[in-house]
């Protein structure tokens, strides 16, 4: 299971960039964070012992870089509603999703879009599996409430 840096970039660049972009909602910030993520990958690739899959390891690094970014910026997830091209139902869902806090948004992405297991998510976010379960439950509850209240 040895990957070169080039193979990792070839296989995972798009996924990581898209994940970062969804989290920060800005092209330039997403590019900077993606670059930082891959520089970290390059630096630590030799010490990667395969305790997780390469994919989850990459998501963990990217998630940490996103956290560092928000710490530096001290700002919340940007919310830029763009209603014109969406149907009403989809706009409501999109509004509700983008009103969620960053942690809830991230965990829903990993679980319901990337179909990652709770164990993988626990590794990526560096939290216990029990916390993953409770965060998932809370995130869905928040989403439900936001959608009900508009």
């Amino acid at each position, binding site marked *: 299971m040895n990957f070169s840096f*080039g193979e990792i970039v070839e296989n995972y660049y798009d996924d990581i960039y898209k994940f970062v972009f969804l989290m920060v909602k800005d092209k330039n910030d997403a590019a900077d964070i993606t670059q930082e993520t891959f520089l970290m990958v390059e630096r630590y690739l030799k010490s990667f012992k395969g305790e997780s899959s390469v994919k989850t390891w990459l998501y963990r690094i990217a998630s940490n870089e996103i956290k560092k970014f928000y710490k530096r910026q001290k700002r919340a997830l940007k919310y830029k509603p763009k209603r014109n091209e969406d149907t009403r139902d989809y706009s409501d869902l999109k509004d509700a999703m983008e009103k969620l806090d960053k942690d809830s948004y991230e965990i829903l992405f990993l679980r319901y879009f990337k179909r990652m297991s709770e164990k993988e998510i626990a590794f990526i976010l560096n939290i216990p599996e029990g916390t993953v379960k409770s965060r998932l439950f809370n995130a869905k509850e928040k989403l439900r409430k936001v959608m009900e209240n508009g």
Partner: protein
Amino acid sequence: MDEKIYSYFEREYGKIKPPKKLKAKLLGREKRKIFTLAAISSSLFIVFILSLIVEFSPAFDQVIMNINFP
């Protein structure tokens, strides 16, 4: 609810176009590294071969003997 969440991410994810320049830049880093490593290895190999030639070729004995250090 799960399907709604999935459909939201599927739609938003599909809209994102990762910049090709950044990917090329990241891949270029590895190519540069390989090129540098190859250049250093080749240089060391050439120096090694030249030192062998100087060491074992009698033609160079006279040259070496005539080198004057200040």
